[in-house]
């Protein structure tokens, strides 16, 4: 009885994780503009692979009597680096496309947006 419950939990986690991975990649393939395309793979695939790694940890612990924390390392690494890559890709898009950079709203202050003004002298001379 307990084996069936354990197998059911692992099966559900596997299916949910792979579903979210597929949804993230469908979003990457189908969304119309780049800024929208940055959302889908970074968030959804991180969640999907977290689910798959939890399923793998449960599988190793409950069915093979082997306690492994490698999966936690991979999950931690992906959680830390996915926002960094999304940020750098958005910045690359903003600085490469002049139409995107000019469509930003005005800041209402003396200095403009920091990422577009970097390298130029500030209005007060510093």
């Amino acid at each position, binding site marked *: 009885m307990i084996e069936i419950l354990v197998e059911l939990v692992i099966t559900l986690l596997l299916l949910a994780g792979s579903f979210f991975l597929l949804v*993230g990649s*469908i979003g990457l393939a189908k969304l119309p503009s780049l800024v929208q395309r940055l959302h889908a793979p970074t968030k959804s*695939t991180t969640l999907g692979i977290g689910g*798959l790694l939890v399923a793998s940890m449960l*599988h190793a612990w409950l069915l093979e009597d082997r306690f492994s924390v490698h999966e936690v390392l991979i999950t931690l690494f992906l959680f830390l680096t996915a926002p960094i890559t999304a940020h750098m890709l958005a*910045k690359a898009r903003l600085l490469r496309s002049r139409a995107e950079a000019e469509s930003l709203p005005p800041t209402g202050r003396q200095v403009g947006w920091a990422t577009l003004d970097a390298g130029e002298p500030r209005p007060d001379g510093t």
Partner: protein
Amino acid sequence: MIDAALLIAALAVALALLLNLYRLAKGPDMVDRVLALDTLTVNAIALVVVIDMALGPQTYFEAALIMAMFGFVSTVAFCKFMLRGDIIE
């Protein structure tokens, strides 16, 4: 039950890999292609995890961890090249 779920998970991850290849080929800008490469890396890690569960207690997680690290570093290097024209200044 777990074998059927592993097969479905592997098929779903393979389909996700093909969709990423489509975006890699089609993406009108270079940023699209770099994003597709990064997502390809994460999906490849998922495939390694599923295969490790299916083939018994062999340790493939070091391969997955190394792929994660290389994927991240290569994405950051591509972005730096796009922004500055040079990786090590």
